[in-house]
């Protein structure tokens, strides 16, 4: 049998994980809609015609996804923080790749699907109720010649910020690397993984910020600014734009690497950390 990855063995791990954690997961499944119900209840109590517009739905979805998703990911390898559970986890006859793939399956894939389904279970009726309430309030005001336009249900795969052109796609671009960082943090930090990983991410962010503002910016010629990943621009004396750009393929490559490779890099780091973990 393959010692790195065997689908059958991985599936056994997935079913074992489910049996051992299903009570906790099923309870959490009730908590997600419960929290949303409470939040939507508060929103719907606002006396306006559009209590649940698309951008509020978006903020609700994205906040829950980030907070709960990262919290859940930070608990994936919590067993390694306890000797009694850690021995059981590491001595379970499965490879490190299979153990990591099982964690990714639950924390990344299944959590995303279940969270999204739970969100829509509350959101779709929530929007219908909001529209009905909004329409009632609208009718009471009796605006002459005015037409009530109901709010749409927010579509996570096709969403643009009102008046903007940034696709909701960028939420995923940010979410998956951050969640993967919390997954890595759950192997690195035996205790208080969520808090420590949050601090580590903030510190990293600060270092990047300082590097850009104190190191990169001072060495960039005066008047020039970083426009794109591989593009610099400035306004010249007559108000024209001067552009210095690297070949397009470099821009595309850097852009794609930044968007898609970070989760993969973090998963590989998690694998090596898991491999070298001692208890």
């Amino acid at each position: 049998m393959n010692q790195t990855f065997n689908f059958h063995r991985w599936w056994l791990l997935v079913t074992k994980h489910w049996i051992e954690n299903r009570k906790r997961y099923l309870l959490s499944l009730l908590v997600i809609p419960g929290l949303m119900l409470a939040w939507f209840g508060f929103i719907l109590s606002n006396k306006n015609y559009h209590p649940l517009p698309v951008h509020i739905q978006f903020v609700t979805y994205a906040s829950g996804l980030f907070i709960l998703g990262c919290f859940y990911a930070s608990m994936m390898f919590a067993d390694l923080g306890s000797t009694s559970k850690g021995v059981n986890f590491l001595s379970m006859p499965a490879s490190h790749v299979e153990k990591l793939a099982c964690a990714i399956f639950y924390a990344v894939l299944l959590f995303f699907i279940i969270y999204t389904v739970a969100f829509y279970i509350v959101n779709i009726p929530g929007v219908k109720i909001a529209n009905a309430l909004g329409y009632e309030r609208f009718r009471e005001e009796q605006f002459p010649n005015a037409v009530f336009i109901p709010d749409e249900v927010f579509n996570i795969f096709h969403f643009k910020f009102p008046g903007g052109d940034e696709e909701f796609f960028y939420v995923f671009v940010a979410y998956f690397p951050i969640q993967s960082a919390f997954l890595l943090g759950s192997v690195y930090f035996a205790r208080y993984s969520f808090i420590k990983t949050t601090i580590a991410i903030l510190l990293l962010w600060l270092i990047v910020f300082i590097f850009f503002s104190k190191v990169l910016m001072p060495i960039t010629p005066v008047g020039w600014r970083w426009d794109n990943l591989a593009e610099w621009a400035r306004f010249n004396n007559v108000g024209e734009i001067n552009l210095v750009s690297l070949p397009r393929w470099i821009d595309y490559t850097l852009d794609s690497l930044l968007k898609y490779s970070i989760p993969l890099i973090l998963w590989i780091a998690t694998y090596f950390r898991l491999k070298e973990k001692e208890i």
Partner: protein
Amino acid sequence: MINISNLHFSYGPQKVFSGLSLQLQAGHIYGLLGKNGTGKSTLLRTMAGLLFPQKGKIDVLGFNPGKRSPDFLQQVFILPEEFQLPDISLEQLLKYHSVFYPGFNRKQFEKYITEFEIPAISTLQQMSYGQKKKVLISFCLACNTSLVLMDEPTNGLDILSKSQFRKVIAGALDENRCIVISTHQVKDLESLIDRITILDEGQILFDETIEVIARKLLFKISFDQEDLKDAIYTESSLRGHALIAVNNTSDESKLDLEMLYKAVILHREKINSVFKA
């Protein structure tokens, strides 16, 4: 089966092993004895691949344990001193955990459960600590792994359960299997182990089979002052003086592990001279 050579390990500045070498063979039950903090659990975890040697080599069943390959893990079961069972039923434990061990035998598991008199309780979390431990011991043995590593397995077991444990372990040994039991409760292993390894400060102080010990040492109770003069180790008791002496007569005596352990710790040179002779 297990070859450890020149093992070095430390927790930060605290050295645990510096050059430990040991060979263990299949078909034996090894008793790993030693004071608290002498490295018994560390040695077991190193054999199981949960800790990595900082220097030296360790070979278990032809594998490097530190790689923790599934083929290796299928042949090793470590029963840690501290353990935690998931909140599932006994039936689920069998269904979802045993599938990882190709040698698992359900009938054998049921036999051990009967011997340990485990009641039919719905979930593992509802069981007492001792019952959980007996379930884990039964599961561990029923997995039929080539190597069984047990860290303080009798901790938390009542007197009756300890004797059941000895019976179950004795019945679980076969020529292809090696069982290593680490404990500081030496009495619990009497009449069970066939080789004793005593660790102290990361070194092997004593490593002999029961057969050799019985041939070379005599354990007896005596009132005779002459016997006391020649004894390697003595202890006063209400019944007289319990002593360990050199066995010059080839008489068979009942091994007292606790006394032997104390004798090795307190009179290491005397004991070693007997076995070197």
